[in-house]
């Protein structure tokens, strides 16, 4: 126990505070104590190095804010706030886009539906699609070959005036550009010869059309005065299935706005 420090060592905190310690006088008898002391010193210094490194690393990321000055903190808070505002705006934009996409989806569907129904009615009107519905079946007999182009055109006009939606005469669909040509007894529809008796299938309100045809001085009377006759039969379900080719527009382009 020769290395015992003096009992009056003043400070527990450091060797320097006790320079009068008679340490290291003669460490001969304590070889095992030396070893133990060395191990203890090694462990303690190891702990110190470890704690030192950990603390340095720790303060690196945490004291960054704790040690920042007030104006720096204010600036950082400002930045964070404006970043939050930007992100919120971004979220709102994305939400709006999402809403637009979902609603335009249904808009597209309804537009498609409308386009389909328009295509269907245009197909009936133009004669590119077969049509089915109530209407009249008329038979124009012309034993004297006296029915002229104008008489047939009158029939068509009268039917159209009475609300006919689509018709066919002797298997030729009447459309927008249908022409009736030829001479009496050798009439042609759209360049195709037709022969009496002419069979007219027309879709529309049967009563209206029959009334229109039968008015005094009208089509039926006119053909009768030429020696022909017209029989009219109302049909609740008539098929107009003669088709026309839709002429392709050569000069006119649709103008979209």
């Amino acid at each position: 126990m020769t290395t015992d420090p003096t009992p009056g060592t003043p400070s527990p905190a450091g060797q320097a505070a006790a320079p009068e310690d008679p340490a290291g006088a003669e460490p001969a008898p304590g070889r095992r104590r030396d070893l133990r002391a060395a191990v203890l010193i090694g462990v303690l210094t190891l702990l110190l190095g470890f704690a030192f490194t950990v603390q340095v690393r720790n303060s690196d990321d945490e004291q960054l804010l704790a040690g920042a000055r007030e104006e720096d903190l204010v600036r950082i808070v400002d930045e964070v706030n404006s970043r939050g505002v930007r992100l919120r705006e971004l979220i709102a934009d994305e939400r709006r886009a999402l809403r637009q996409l979902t609603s335009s989806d249904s808009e597209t569907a309804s537009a498609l539906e409308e386009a389909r129904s328009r295509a269907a009615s245009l197909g009936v009107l133009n004669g590119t699609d077969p049509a089915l519905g109530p209407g009249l079946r008329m038979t124009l007999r012309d034993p004297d070959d006296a029915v002229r182009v104008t008489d047939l055109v009158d029939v068509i006009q009268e039917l159209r005036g009475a609300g006919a939606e689509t018709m066919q005469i002797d298997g030729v669909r009447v459309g927008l550009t249908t022409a009736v040509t030829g001479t009496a007894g050798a009439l042609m529809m759209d360049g195709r010869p037709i022969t009496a008796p002419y069979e007219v299938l027309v879709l529309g309100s049967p009563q209206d059309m029959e009334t229109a045809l039968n008015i005094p001085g009208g089509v039926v009377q006119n053909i009768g005065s030429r020696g022909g006759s017209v029989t009219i039969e109302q049909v609740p379900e008539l098929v107009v299935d003669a088709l026309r080719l839709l002429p392709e527009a050569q000069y006119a382009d649709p103008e979209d706005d």
Partner: protein
Amino acid sequence: MIPILGLVAGVLLGLLVDPTVPLWLQPYLPIAVVAALDAVFGGLRARLDGIFDAKVFVISFVSNVVVAALIVFLGDQLGVGAQLSTAVVVVLGIRIFGNAAAIRRHVFRA
């Protein structure tokens, strides 16, 4: 030699492991490190003075750390933890300066 090896090993270990300091230890760790540094400087000075004693070094090291942490802990309980931490750091810093001056005189003879 051993203290230097221990320090280097500890630093390497800290770099490799990189643990997060538990919250309850966070106020005490820097104080403890400074107190331990004080003990190490004191030991170095004693060695240069030729009066180094392992037992004194170990006891002073441990008690330094414990007393420093205890002071800060008491300060925390009393609501003056930050001020007492500063006080401890100032005192230990002065001692480190004093020891460093003694070491300097030994090493540079000036």
